[in-house]
């Protein structure tokens, strides 16, 4: 048997361009460059690129990243979670109920909230794999159930839908700063003193830098990107995620525990939503029943802009993170540029449509369909 049979003359060498096109992150990379070029040209003087401005859109982008990483891995595993937004509202409310109303120590309120929310995620997953129903419908039900509880519980217990005072309760707690704290404060003070970034010129904070540290929200976003990317591309579990979303039956025939993979991904998505919610209530100091509205769609849009296929089996965490970055930069950038904010929705719709069309085209290249 010849070990080097001649190359098949009908297999055309694919061009570098097409090869690059197959990488799921490409759309996100091009989009990121385009968005930054645009705002550097048209909004450079608006303060968008000074320390405060950068922190502004970084925080917004990081919020999108946290939920996009969860949605991305779940979508690659072949499922959706529409309950992310409600889960954010619900998780925030749980922390407030346990921490403020029931006066539990903050760390235990946060922990019990994680347990409850991840259990709901597992329940979503269990129902989906057990019944074989589309996750779209199952999690749509969860969307309403969780939102209903988020309004009902505080109204029954406190006769209001916004519970404040979380910051006072969290004072001195060991776990709360992991979500609500800031790091590298010393570095920013030094940069302020050295004149690299601006300092407040009057008021009670005179002399302090305008940005006094990196919020833990951003740290969480980076941690989740790194974790998700390594899990997906460098572990056997990552291979199972791709396989479960690519073709669940073929994966099962090869001995991949598809149901387990899917349930775990639902749990991970719920975990990401809870991280988001915890950071948010620590920042605002309050929990509101309307928090997280429409976040599920924003997460899915970021993931799709990042090159993942809605049908599963293909995508990248880096791409989803870039999608989230585009999302955050454009949303805040239009504000800086003084553009009417309703146009953001127009932009969102257009870019979503464009991304989906591009992704379908890319899938044809990969699978060789015509």
């Amino acid at each position, binding site marked *: 048997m010849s070990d080097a049979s001649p190359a098949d003359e009908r297999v055309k060498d694919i061009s570098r361009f097409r090869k690059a096109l197959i990488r799921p992150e490409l759309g996100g990379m091009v989009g990121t460059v385009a968005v930054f070029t645009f705002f550097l040209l048209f909004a450079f003087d608006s303060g968008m690129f000074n320390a405060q401005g950068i922190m502004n859109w970084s925080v917004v982008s990081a919020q999108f990243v946290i939920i996009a990483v969860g949605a991305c891995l779940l979508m690659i595993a072949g499922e959706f979670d529409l309950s992310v937004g409600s889960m954010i509202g619900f998780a925030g409310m749980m922390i407030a109920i346990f921490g403020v109303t029931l006066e539990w120590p903050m760390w235990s309120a946060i922990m019990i909230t994680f347990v409850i929310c991840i259990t709901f995620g597992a329940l979503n997953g269990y129902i989906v794999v057990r019944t074989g129903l589309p996750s779209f419908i199952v999690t749509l039900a969860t969307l309403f159930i969780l939102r209903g509880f988020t309004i009902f519980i505080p109204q029954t217990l406190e006769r209001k839908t916004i519970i404040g005072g979380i910051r006072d309760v969290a004072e001195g707690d060991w776990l709360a700063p992991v979500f609500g704290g800031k790091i590298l404060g010393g570095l920013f003070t030094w940069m302020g003193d050295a004149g690299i970034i601006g300092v407040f010129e009057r008021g009670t904070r005179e002399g302090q830098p305008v940005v006094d540290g990196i919020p833990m929200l951003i740290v969480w976003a980076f941690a989740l990107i790194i974790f998700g990317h390594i899990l997906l591309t460098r572990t056997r579990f990552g*291979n199972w995620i791709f396989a479960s979303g*690519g073709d669940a039956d073929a994966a099962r025939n090869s001995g991949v525990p598809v149901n387990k993979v899917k349930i775990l991904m639902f749990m991970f998505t719920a975990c990401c939503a809870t991280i988001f919610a915890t950071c948010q209530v620590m920042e605002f100091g309050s929990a509101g029943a309307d928090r997280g509205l429409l976040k599920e769609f924003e997460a899915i849009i970021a993931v799709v802009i990042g090159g993942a296929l809605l049908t599963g089996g293909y995508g990248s965490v880096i791409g989803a993170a870039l999608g989230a970055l585009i999302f955050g930069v454009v949303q805040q950038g239009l504000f800086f540029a003084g553009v009417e904010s309703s146009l953001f929705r127009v932009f969102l719709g257009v870019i979503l449509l464009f991304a989906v069309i591009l992704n379908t085209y890319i899938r044809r290249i990969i*699978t060789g369909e015509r």
Partner: protein
Amino acid sequence: MSDPIIQMKNIEKHFGSVIALAGVSVDVFAGECHCLLGDNGAGKSTFIKTMSGVHKPTAGEIIFEGQPMDFADPRDAIAAGIATVHQHLAMIPLMSVSRNFFMGNEPTKKVAGFNFFDHEHANTVTMQEMRAMGINLRGPDQAVGTLSGGERQTVAIARAVHFGAKVLILDEPTSALGVRQTANVLATIDRVRKQGIAVVFITHNVRHAMAVGDRFTVLNRGQTLGTAARGEITPEELQDMMAGGQEMATLEGSLGGTV
């Protein structure tokens, strides 16, 4: 000849009031290609699903390497060395050949206490195996979707062999393929058989069976019509047995012997 690697004795399978298999006996030896022929509804699929652990037989015995076996699920059968290559549902088009090849059997290496997917090893092995099977890949990261149907079957067979299959069940591997691709798959079957693996080749195409088969068993209406070795039977006789004889002969006559 030595003992058969797998013996199926009087296998019966009932689904409620339907008797899908009414006592089928087949034995397969290592290094032979045993063709299982039968028309649609003859019970071929039910029979191989019993062999590969998907169904539990209602009655009858499975003896694998001299031991009576009782498979709880397909994973048991795979662990014992019985691999099934399905016509569809074997490969995931969006994933690379290398990721597909090792799906469910991913090699890992430890880095800093964590287990990581050993892509380097996976890619090297995949390229070697594919070259041995005569498939030219652009690279191990080429998506399976770009391969032809015959190449996908070949990858699936190569994968089963690589992971230590002793009995390879091929469920109609050629039924959706063109002439050239069929020839490639048949050549692969021949190569695998020569490595000493028992091949169970399910088909309803007599010519494909005749091309590689050592022995032929015909199923009809859930029963074994008989087993014949190569040279003991002509393609026409096989065709007749599959179709249930007389009826088909008349039909064939009216079609001018083209079937």
